[in-house]
């Protein structure tokens, strides 16, 4: 069997999370989620439940025609099932910080900004938080700045919110009522204790803790033969480094 690369395992795991979706949208700078969505689309191409994938930074994989506003409008209408958000920091209540570390506005380290998170996090039913780096620096007790909150009081319109958090070490589900994460799967290269130590917040453990699955040879073939060339179009740096080096 071919050697499977670490990002490919993540792509495969994320792809599994999109099983029941009809339309997944991918925002800025998300090559791994983007690859996962295209993989899910490809695998369901001949099934009855097709998946639509919109990759915003691509002309080709973009189902919209009403300008860059349409993603937000369509999401607010409930037409997007899954969206991905990242975070410079993510905390135990699923608050995300895309702005920077330190005291706002004069930050110690400024990052890009909140993008569409302050609406998308509220309206898309399944938000998957994705941050490859899993350290106490990224998964923190309390974020320095809330770009978008993990939970909202009842007088705020909020049909959507966080469902999963996936890192290079583990997959968590989020429980809205208990306001906390629960570990669901672990990368077999790490122990649970290592994950606990690299997480700045407390999370619920799981008696049925599973491991990240090794993608099947068939899936790897699809990924490398059909998906990689597509990704090269709109995330050239990522695709070159992973698949075309």
């Amino acid at each position, binding site marked *: 069997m071919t050697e499977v690369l670490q990002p490919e395992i993540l792509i495969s795991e994320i792809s599994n999370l999109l099983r029941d979706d009809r339309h997944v949208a991918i925002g800025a700078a998300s090559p791994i989620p983007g690859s996962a969505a295209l993989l899910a689309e490809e695998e369901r191409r001949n099934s009855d439940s097709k998946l639509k994938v919109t990759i915003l930074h691509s002309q080709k994989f973009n189902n919209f025609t009403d300008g860059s506003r349409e993603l*937000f409008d369509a999401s607010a209408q409930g037409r997007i099932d899954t969206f991905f958000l990242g975070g410079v920091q993510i905390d135990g209540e699923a608050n995300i910080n895309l702005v920077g570390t330190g005291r706002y506005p004069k930050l110690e380290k400024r990052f890009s900004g*909140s993008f569409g998170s302050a609406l998308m996090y509220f309206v898309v039913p399944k938000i998957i938080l994705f941050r490859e780096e899993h350290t106490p620096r990224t998964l923190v007790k309390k974020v320095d700045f809330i770009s978008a909150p993990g939970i909202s009081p009842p007088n705020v319109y909020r049909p959507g919110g966080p469902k999963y958090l996936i890192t290079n070490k583990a997959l968590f589900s989020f429980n809205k009522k208990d306001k906390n994460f629960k570990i669901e799967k672990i990368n077999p290269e790490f122990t649970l204790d290592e994950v606990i130590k690299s997480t700045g917040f407390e999370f619920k453990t799981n008696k049925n803790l599973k491991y990240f699955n090794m993608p099947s040879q068939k899936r790897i073939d699809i990924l490398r033969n059909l998906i990689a060339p597509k990704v090269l179009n709109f995330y050239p*740096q990522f695709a070159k480094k992973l698949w075309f080096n």
Partner: protein
Amino acid sequence: MVNFDLMTVETIASKVEDNSLIGIPADYSGVPMSVTIEIIKRKKRNLRLYCLPLTTIQGDMLIGSGCVKEIETAAVTLGEYGQAPRFQDAIENSKIKIKDSTCPALHAQLQATEKSVPFMPLRGIIGSDLYHNRKDWSVIDNPMKTHSKDDEKIVILPAVQLDVLIFHAAKADINGNVQIGRRRELATLAHASKKVYVTVEEIVNEDFFECELKASATLPSLYIDGISLSKNGAWPCGLTDYYTLDSEEMNKYAKAAKHQETFDTYMENFISQSFYSNNLI
């Protein structure tokens, strides 16, 4: 021969006044790099950038060159080429003011101006620290009572009118209509701007309104105050169906912009060369 007065890229740059509020298109909407260089050359100062909804190298260059006083945006980033170094430096050292926002809010504020209403409501945002740093935003009780959410709180955003918008596009026709394709955010930007200038790759000898398909992809000349021919005008950014982003140059920029000194050297070089052929026809 065209039925309107063509401008030079230099003239467009000269129309941008110090202190003005400038509409900045996203990297996928046609970045007017050739005009940006002329703005930097002319040492425009205290510009206020309104990004729809983000900026990449254009914003970072303007900030690094000292042209910017304030920026309202959902993000500044070089995308796959990393963080925007001059922007980071300016924020971390309080050199510019930032109005951190979120994409749909940046759209909605322009849509308010498009419709000439004083504000627009928007869901989301409540509970975000973005809100706490925006004195121009308010939370009100939803005045339109519905059954389920009698005490719903909702954010309202002010209408924002831009002083000037500049973008780069593929084609203009002989009557000064501009092809924007699916980049309809450019229409919203134009509707909400007092002045609109456009650079294009080419001017074609036809009227887009003669063909329904082309008309559908058109920003009408009635919103446009000046057009300049500028080949490769978005470079090193890309332009749909014309050229893709120049990875090599982006990497070069990302590296150079890490420090003000190397950025300055890079910009000197950039300015002294003529990457853009700005020909009148």
